[in-house]
């Protein structure tokens, strides 16, 4: 069971051992910098606080990590793909919209519609954009991530999905 990502270079921003090991097991070369065919962003879950206990700085930090950095990272990745005339795959991974605090709800709601938008806006660049919003961090997440960034998912773009009933 390997080979979905043979010959592909993947950059993973953020921590998720299941995703990293699944991509590597499917043949991807994991890179820290330089050109890559796949960009996966894994957002760390922000601490859960009631909305009225969140400072503006905490709110902003959560939106920076959960939304702004993802948009800017995707924009940079897509620009590099266009510059060299190749397609690519972007995957956002993180907790579901209503799983944590209001900061997460805002960031992930925005991310979901951003996923749908960029998936279409960059479709004819051959760049696909998808999101998995889940609390799962196990093998299914890793395999799903590897599938979504592979050519087997060539007709899947702008898709926002979870994994289990809690997502």
């Amino acid at each position, binding site marked *: *069971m390997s080979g*979905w990502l043979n010959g592909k270079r993947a950059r993973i921003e953020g921590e998720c051992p299941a995703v990293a090991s699944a991509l590597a097991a499917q043949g991807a070369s994991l890179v820290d910098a330089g050109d890559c065919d796949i960009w996966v962003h894994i957002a760390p879950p922000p601490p859960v606080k009631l909305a009225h206990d969140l400072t503006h700085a905490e709110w902003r930090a959560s939106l920076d990590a959960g939304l702004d950095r993802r948009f800017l990272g995707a924009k940079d990745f897509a620009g590099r793909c266009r510059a060299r*005339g*190749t*397609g690519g795959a972007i995957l956002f991974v993180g907790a579901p919209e209503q799983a944590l605090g209001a900061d997460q709800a805002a960031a992930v709601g925005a991310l979901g519609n951003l996923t*749908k*938008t960029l*998936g*279409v806006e960059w*479709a*004819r*660049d*051959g*760049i*696909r954009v998808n999101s998995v919003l889940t609390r*799962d961090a*196990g*093998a*299914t*997440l890793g*395999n*799903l991530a590897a*599938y979504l960034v*592979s*050519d*087997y*998912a*060539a*007709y*899947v*773009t*702008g*898709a926002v*999905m*979870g*994994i*289990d*009933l809690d*997502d």
Partner: protein
Amino acid sequence: MAGERATLGVGRETLAVPQHHIVATPPPFDQPPYPADIFAGQTVLVTGGGSGMGLAMAKAFAQGGAQVAVMGRSMERAEEGAAQIAALGVRAHAMSCDVRQPEAIAAAFDEAERELGPIGLLANNAGANFPILAEDISPNAWNAVTRIAIDGTFLCSAEFARRRIARGEGGAIVNNSAQYIWTGFPGDAHSAAAKTAQATMTKKLAADWAPYGIRVNAIAAGFFPHDTSTAGRREGGIAPLQNMIPAGRTGNIWEFGWLSAMTCTPLFGGMTGQVIVQDGGESLRRSLMMPDFVPPRERADGPWGWQ
């Protein structure tokens, strides 16, 4: 480069989009994403499995080594499909069944299990669809489309689950839904209702049967032209349809089969209650400036406007 990517699946020469557009394409049919024994020893029942998208699902399960029970309204079509599936090297059994009749479903499950052993996988694909103005849909036409998809999916799933629960074993179900379930489908009201019911029941069935280890997921499928689809019969072929889809092409039917089967593999063993859209961005195509709205009844060439 685009040319290199195109060699993986659909030939670039078959695409209608401008040459400088890059089109993501899948591996060819003979390179499925899972090993040939991933379903070894298991039997899948595919409703509407004799042709079209159901046959694509059935072939995908067969590529993973599943034995396949092909259920169809038409015995002749089911047998034709079963022959194609058997050619992939697995046992296949054709049956005729109306999925609106619970007793007929139970009898078909009995027959399939006699022939192939316990059914541990189910693909609900049976459905009918045709473009028509809402005011022209007769009660019979409404019932045909909605009850095959809605009642049929429910009845087959419940029959499957009762048998799995009785055996004390889990299982997996995949439902063939559609990309228009979130937007409506003007000119196709019966199917718009039917396909959404399949997706929403997917989530609830998954919750009801999670304690029994039965997973339920759905694919919200886009345009996968085939011999028996309205699009497949279109004069001039599918090339002109490719330009309207953000991905730059219609789907290859084996891509749909693979994703459907994939949700039932142990690779996605933690997944349940999900509706995965696979439509090349078609349902998301959107612009503030769009061509003038034309009501379905005023489109020159029928409700879908391109016939």
